[in-house]
């Protein structure tokens, strides 16, 4: 069982992620944008995995990944990007920022769980 932080400004997406992840026995904590994601990280401490959206208000996914990577505790935490964006340019940007992998929305639960498994030891 993993503790997973999910960041998405869409309630629908957060609910779907929560349903999928908790269905697979994981604990999903939620944040609605990058800024809240950082705050949640500092409150929650250790997480096994972060799944983040790109297009969000206040602090977008790229900004979030960069800032999360600056935190000593999350230098090596796997971060998956979950976005409808699929252009190579956006992926390259996410990779430069420090993302571990990319899932294109909409996702089905198998795709998501497979990606989760691929980047975590759980």
């Amino acid at each position, binding site marked *: 069982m993993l503790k997973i932080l999910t960041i998405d400004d869409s309630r629908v997406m957060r*609910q*779907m992620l929560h349903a999928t992840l908790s269905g697979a026995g994981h604990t999903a904590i939620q944040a609605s944008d990058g800024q809240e994601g950082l705050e949640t990280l500092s409150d929650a401490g250790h997480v096994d995995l972060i799944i983040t959206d790109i*297009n969000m*208000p206040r602090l977008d996914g790229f900004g979030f990944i960069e800032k999360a990577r600056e935190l000593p505790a999350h*230098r090596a935490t796997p971060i998956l990007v979950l976005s409808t964006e699929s252009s190579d340019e956006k*992926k390259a940007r996410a990779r430069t920022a420090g993302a571990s992998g990319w899932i294109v929305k909409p996702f089905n639960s198998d795709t998501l769980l497979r990606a989760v498994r*691929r980047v975590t030891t759980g």
Partner: protein
Amino acid sequence: METLEAIKVTFFQECEELLGDLETGLLSLQAGEGDDETVNAVFRAVHSVKGGAGAFGLEALVRFAHTFETTLDKVRSGALKADEAVLKVMLRATDILADLVQAAKTDAVVDPDRIAESSEDLEAFWGGHDTAAPAAAAGESDDWDFTPLAFAPVPSLAPAGPPRWTVWFKPSTATYAKGNDTVLLLRELARLGDCETVLDASSLPAFDALDAEESYLGWTVTITTEEGEAAIREVFDFVSGDCEVRISGEVVAMPQLSTLPILPPVMDLPPLALPSAQIPALAAVEPEQRDVLPVDGPADLHPRDKAAKKEKEAAPSAAPTIRVDLERVDRLIDLVGELVINQAMLAQRVGEIDLTRASNVQLALESLEQLTREIQDSVMAIRAQPVKSVFQRMPRLVRETASMTGKQVKLVTEGEGTEVDKTVIERLSDPITHMLRNAIDHGLETPDERIAAGKAPEGTVRLSALHRSGRIVIEVSDDGKGINRQRVRELAVERGVIAPDQPLTDDEVDNLIFAPGFSTAKAVSDLSGRGVGLDVVKRSIQSLGGRISIASKAGQGSTFTMSLPLTLAVLDGMVVSVGEQTLIVPLAAIVETLKPKKSDIRRLGTGMLLAVRDAIVPLIDVGVALGWRSEPIDPTTGVVLLVECEVGGCAALMVDAIQGQRQVVIKSLEQNFQRVESIAAATILGDGRVALILDVDTVVGERRVEAEAGGSPRLALAS
């Protein structure tokens, strides 16, 4: 686990909010108030609709949202300027997006021609020739690629091939810096089939030359699998670019293969072998852990903290919220209502026992009363909502009405943050819709007429909300031609609403449009009235304890003013005695109370008038008006309540005595008994008796009708 249906409900709720944000954003761009963040917010709204729609397989919605999004992306990147023409097309696209959402909700279908037309309009801004953006091509192509993609496009190779593959890979430090781990890669490979894993430690330097931050190790995995090369490549999707990978159907010659022992597949990795595989991972983590040590000194940490703090202040942190079933809040409000009644009863009972004012019981009761009121206010605040949700729906209505009537209209909204009880919000939409349609259909002139009158061809309709003396006031004003009073008069006479020679002030003529059976449109226009007269609108507003009126200036425009109580649950009332009965008069209506002097009272026919300072107002005995007695009491023995009514005039209500002021819980008479003329609702008093709440407007209005019928001279109402 939440069911998909529940999530779908959230999706449609969210869509409504997103569409509202979208429209608001586009309108503020149109008004020249938008900035980059507005463009981003607008983009995100469409993007989120698309994302959610994709999850539910709502293809038509996804397709259109994608085209819309691509156009918005052009604006975001600066390739397209959001000028008037672009925004116009986008606003129309917003309407279609809203229709598609609605259609998805109800399983209906939107006219494909409308979608196609709007899509073409959107695409016209960037065109098929724009090869710079790959998304543009995707928008036009029919086969949508929404299958999960990884960092590097996976070459789609035929799954056929030799069952034995040799995979050589060597992660770089960057691989570990992004949270990836060799152990995981080996485990994924092991999933595909039997593996023989060889560690390539050839680059490993002597121990004293070892740099803890470097990555030295590589692996060769010989794997027997039917899955094919694509499946193997997929394992490396997330690390490609940072990690050298070579895959081959034959045995690859290893560069300087060392004589390290062959490791079993990683799933069965013995604990002893693990550390060696994890060395690079640890190496990648270590420098960061050093970061917290005072190596760089606190001087370095300080500014960073400060910057972080500054950023936190700059970005307004959203207040945490919870979502609660409305039913629970309603139940709470009901209960608080009962609490208020109970508290009042208790106060009354204690009052009957002869206690000194300073007794402990009295003091405790006073603080109970205070607390009850605070609880009530807090609970009501839970249900309060900004009128934004209603206002947001109006730009579309204005656009549609404008295009149907061939008029050019700009809608300006003010006071969207004004809060009002949810039960009231729900009832605002219809009257506002009606007033706006009326303002555009009847108030505004056609562009040609406006130019002839020396005005700008585009008319302005202003929709505003504000709080005024415990009520919400909604105003709809236009800068059109104003009410044609002569025509209104003629029509009113023609339809028997007034007598031909009846003297009326301009204000009164204007407000004839609310009279039953009156419509200034030559044919009852389906557009402005949707078949419903303004009289019906007025009645429905009155039934909520509200008022509506219109003021007009020839050639300059008209203003509809509607006021409603902030809540339909409680009311601040004046408790008065009339004969044997106790009545509640809404405090909001009362301007002042006074004891009339004999010299101030004039008799006029069957009616009475009261001189209040410079003005003369009709004096109405409430007992007579309600039919409880036939003769009015002697005015000098009673008390007069000076009330304001919806036509902007005053009247004086005469009652026997004032008992006090109290907040009362409104109990509907229609629901519990039946509708009673001149009575707005009922309440339960402290002693358990039912008291009626007076409908001031009706009482005053009736008196006026009587006065007219009696042929007495027109009463000039003081304003």
